[in-house]
């Protein structure tokens, strides 16, 4: 069991603020400035700030992604400088989505950044695994896929980042949780669609079902940062929210407003949720058997190692 080293030492509560950005398409500096204004309005008690996917450029960029993609260190430095300009030397952790240029290979990425008084550290960089390339989406035409789902230690315990479609494949939050993540950070940009629902767009309803399922099944907090604003007629659905490990949506933003969503995560809820519904523990015991199912398309050689 790896439980002991995945818990936040001494921190039971984490004050989270989600900045539901409404970016101006392609105007990186303007959007960075808006983030600075959000930092100024965010309130005093904040430990972790979450931004959506593509929060500083807009999502639908097509070929312009090559103009706007950034090296991760440059993006981290810009975020840290903007934070310090607004909040001085106060420490904070940030998670934010951006288009990454890694020496000419382009990714839809999000980084987890710790900002101290005079330095910043990229704690983790996640590259989106599942690039939607169907219907209105065209990511894989312009971007490369991430190849690894990492979990990482923070001041508040172990976490994982899943970008948008990553979270729609149930096995991704599952693997994150099995690898010790107690908080799932999900930057997203979801164009709304489906008007046959009852009071909400169907895509919003589906998102919430997906997020609640992930939280309940694994006993994790879910912090969902949704982009808002229209992009060429496609309306991003916002609805940034925090879901506790029992599956309760404890706060949720509206679809259309640039918003700051504030909530406090009481990390002790994770243990209570897992005590009452120990599905994650059950899964850890059975998962090896499931993965060694010879009907599964495992990479060549993997089964040979186990069979030896």
């Amino acid at each position, binding site marked *: 069991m790896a439980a002991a080293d995945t818990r936040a030492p001494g921190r039971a509560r984490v004050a989270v603020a989600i900045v539901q950005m409404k970016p101006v398409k392609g105007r990186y500096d303007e959007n960075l400035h808006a983030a600075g204004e959000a930092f100024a*309005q965010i*309130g005093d008690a904040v430990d972790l700030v979450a931004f959506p996917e593509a929060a500083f450029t807009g999502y639908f960029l097509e070929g312009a992604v090559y103009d706007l993609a950034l090296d991760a260190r440059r993006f981290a430095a810009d975020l840290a400088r903007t934070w310090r300009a607004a909040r001085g030397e106060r420490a904070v952790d940030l998670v934010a989505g951006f288009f990454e240029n890694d020496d000419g290979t382009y990714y839809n990425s999000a980084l987890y950044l710790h900002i101290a008084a005079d330095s910043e550290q990229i704690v983790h960089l996640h590259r989106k695994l599942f690039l939607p390339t169907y219907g209105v989406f065209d990511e894989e035409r312009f971007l490369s896929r991430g190849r690894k789902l990492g979990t990482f230690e923070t001041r508040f315990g172990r976490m994982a980042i899943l970008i948008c479609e990553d979270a729609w494949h149930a096995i991704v939050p599952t693997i994150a949780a099995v690898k010790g993540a107690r908080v799932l950070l999900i930057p997203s940009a979801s164009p709304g669609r489906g008007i046959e629902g009852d009071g909400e767009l169907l895509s919003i309803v589906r998102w919430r079902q997906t997020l609640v399922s992930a939280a309940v099944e694994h006993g994790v907090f879910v912090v969902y940062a949704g982009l808002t604003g229209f992009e060429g007629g496609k309306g991003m659905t916002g609805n940034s929210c925090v879901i506790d490990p029992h599956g309760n949506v404890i706060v949720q933003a509206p679809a259309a407003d640039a*918003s700051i969503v*504030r909530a406090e995560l009481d990390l002790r809820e994770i243990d209570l949720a897992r005590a009452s519904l120990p599905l994650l523990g059950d899964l850890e015991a059975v998962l090896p058997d499931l993965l060694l199912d010879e009907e599964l398309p495992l990479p060549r050689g993997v089964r040979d190692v186990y069979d030896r």
Partner: protein
Amino acid sequence: MTFTIVEAPANTPRPPGIDCAVTAEWLTAFLRDELLFRRNVSRAVVGLSGGVDSAVTAYLCARALGPKNVYAIRLPYATSSPASLSDAQLVVDALGIHCDTIAITDAVDGYLQFEPDADARRRGNVMARTRMVILFDQSAKLGALPIGTGNKTERMLGYFTWHADDTPPLNPIGDLFKTQVWALARYLGVPRPLIDKAPSADLEADQTDEADLGITYARADALLCELLHGYNDEQLVEHGFSADEVALVRRRVDATHWKRHLPTTAMLTNTAINEFYLRPVDY
């Protein structure tokens, strides 16, 4: 750019909620299944005190079995409030169920005349156990089953007489907190006087549950709900309960743990009942 601030609501203690329609339907199915199909009994006996718990139980039984198969029995003692009798009558009239009134005064005093020093608690326990003797005997006479009326709040706080209120083999409302019973009562159409009056065991003059317990049902239910979900005392205080409330409820729950179990039996063999010999109740 100005951002709209959206705050998570503060975690203020709230009594547990209830979907009354779903609950009523579920409990009606429970009573039908246990009585008609599992035990082949079509009649129910309910001790109707004039309070909301037994009223809700009677309403559920009437739904499950039809009013003609429900036998309400009023069991007053000499000092019982007259309002208890008249409030019970409101339920009988509203449902059209059978009703009998059997005073327990002679039976209780027949014993207590030899125990002049018995305090209120002992006297109350004798009354509660006498009532149960009668409910079981009336059930035997009618070919019925007595139905329990204890709610979850009083069960968790141990606010009941062991092997009296908790004795009937079926209890439809034992997993409902008192505030949920009130909500269900409103949904079922229980007469307002029974819902609006201060709950009382009616074992002594001017007695009320909340005065006895030292906490309101609304606060107790909200606290119990969180306590049962595993929150520790520190977290309960963080959630808005006072340290005194937490201590009071925790003390009552812990001190009455034994009342929620069968008697402790010394195990001597490897066939000890409920230790080695294990069979579910519906086996």
